[in-house]
């Protein structure tokens, strides 16, 4: 219960910052000022937006399927939020450490689709219906390349546990029960003879341990943009053509929940990308002979320093990815539906399948 509350608070905090950052970053990239009035540099803008939304009337359209309409936002948010349960925030801190975390995450996030369809169908609105259909088609399609990219990581790491995958990518490798005698080699290849177990840092990140995972990371990142309905894959929302897609009929608290779910999804996919590919909560600085950067920026596991360093690295890497998501949104134009499906089925999925095959071969080189 405590983990639930803490994660919720952390998530709300991140989402508030993210909503503000989105507006400011968008403004700066378009040579505008963004919010300036509420608080210093407009920093209270998103807090006030939330307060405003909570005060608004909760309108349920007369023609809507009221049960589905009312339940949908809660289901969507619950599905996304449940994903956070298996995210390790520091070496010691994980809301629920289960051995099949990756599998659980993929499964629970798929529930999101059901909620979207409920919202779109329940609204009894053509725009909402179109948005929901596009959204479902897109998310279901892009789960395949994303899933295959994640599968290649799982094959390299031989684990479905997020925490074990995290430990493998840093100098704390031997601290994880069951991995006491494991060793990290440069590029994961023992034949090269360079032991990176105690060097740590970026050299033990998954994209460095098995460089072909860099491609997997790109595929996952592109697919995750589509899964969280972000530009350039935002055809389900498409402000300029569908008004707002599946949540066009929502107002007040329910809209706030949908908004929260959307931003939580962005945070979640970035967190997963960081954990699977970019070294999780491990420091990016390697140990260089006498300069023990990795030791200095890891802290003591179990102590406060370990928690702070772990949280700091995880969140700062996540925010870099989130910034990239924002920048991509304000750089690239929206894809057409056919282009979207072409990219998914004819480009990303075949490459991802190839990566899975190569990851298997790479793993053979690693042992």
């Amino acid at each position: 219960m405590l983990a639930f509350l803490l994660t919720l608070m952390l998530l709300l905090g991140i989402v508030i910052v993210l909503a503000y950052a989105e507006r400011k970053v968008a403004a700066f990239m378009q040579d505008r000022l963004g919010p300036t009035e509420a608080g210093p540099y407009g920093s209270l803008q998103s807090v006030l937006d939330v307060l405003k939304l909570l005060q608004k009337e909760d309108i349920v359209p007369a023609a809507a399927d009221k049960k589905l309409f009312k339940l949908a936002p809660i289901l969507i948010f619950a599905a996304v939020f449940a994903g956070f349960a298996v995210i390790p925030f520091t070496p010691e801190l994980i809301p629920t450490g289960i051995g099949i975390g990756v599998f659980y995450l993929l499964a629970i996030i798929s529930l999101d689709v059901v909620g979207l369809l409920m919202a779109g169908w329940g609204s009894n609105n053509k725009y909402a219906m179109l948005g929901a259909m596009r959204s479902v088609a897109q998310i279901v399609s892009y789960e395949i390349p994303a899933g295959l990219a994640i599968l290649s990581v799982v094959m390299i790491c031989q684990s479905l546990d997020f925490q074990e995958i995290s430990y493998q990518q840093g100098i704390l490798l031997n601290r994880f029960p069951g991995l006491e005698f494991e060793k990290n080699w440069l590029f994961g290849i023992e034949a090269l003879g360079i032991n990176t177990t105690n060097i740590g840092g970026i050299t033990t990140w998954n994209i460095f341990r098995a460089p072909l995972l860099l491609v997997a990371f790109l595929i996952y990142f592109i697919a995750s943009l589509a899964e969280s309905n972000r530009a350039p894959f935002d055809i389900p929302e498409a402000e300029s053509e569908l008004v707002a897609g599946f949540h066009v009929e929502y107002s007040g608290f329910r809209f706030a929940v949908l908004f929260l779910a959307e931003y939580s999804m962005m945070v979640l996919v970035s967190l997963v990308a960081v954990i699977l590919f970019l070294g999780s909560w491990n420091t990016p600085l390697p140990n260089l002979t006498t300069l023990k950067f990795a030791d200095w920026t890891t802290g003591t596991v179990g102590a406060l320093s370990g928690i702070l360093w772990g949280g700091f690295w995880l969140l700062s890497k996540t925010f870099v990815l989130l910034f990239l998501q924002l920048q991509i949104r304000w750089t690239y134009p929206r894809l057409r539906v056919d282009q979207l499906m072409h990219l998914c089925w004819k480009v990303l999925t075949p490459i991802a399948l190839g990566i899975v095959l190569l990851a298997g071969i790479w793993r053979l080189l690693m042992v």
Partner: protein
Amino acid sequence: MERTSVKHKAGFWEVVKSLLSGLLLTWRHFRNADKRRAPVPVMDENYFKQPEGLVTLTYPYEAIPVPENGRYRLHNEIDDCIVCDLCAKICPVNCITIESVKATEEIGMTSDGTKKRLYAPVFDIDMAKCCYCGLCTTVCPTDCLTMTPVYDFSEVDIKNMIYHFTDLTPEQAEEKKQLLAKQQEEMAAAKAAALAARKQQ
């Protein structure tokens, strides 16, 4: 006309390059976000030479200065006005309303030395009707009617767009009218007396 086809570069690496150049463009704008466009007037030679930085002007706090010869809100310096009615006559939209009352004696001088002989119980300019042509300021003989650089004067009630420039209260105006009527009565009486005296001769 001969058509020449535009060669589009294609292929994987060209696409990657163009995607990256797009990201670079937004990144460059993001990095320049600490710079602001200076609120210089259009007369300034740097007005068109500020390609970088945020362009937003936080209007009530900062504003681009207007040109000196710009035509904005009218102002009448009533102390200098000789109530000649020329402005009201030339106005193409009839937005100036003037009523005049002759003074019984000379009532002073304007700052350029013209004698004032008329009171203005009403000198109203309806800025909601004004078309900002500036003709009234051109014909004004004492240069008391001018255009100021004030352009932000919107009102909730359109009646507040009528600007009253008279320096007389209604009571004072009434008093002046009575004084004039009295003087004219006296003059008429004097004339009649003179006429009667001439007839008797």
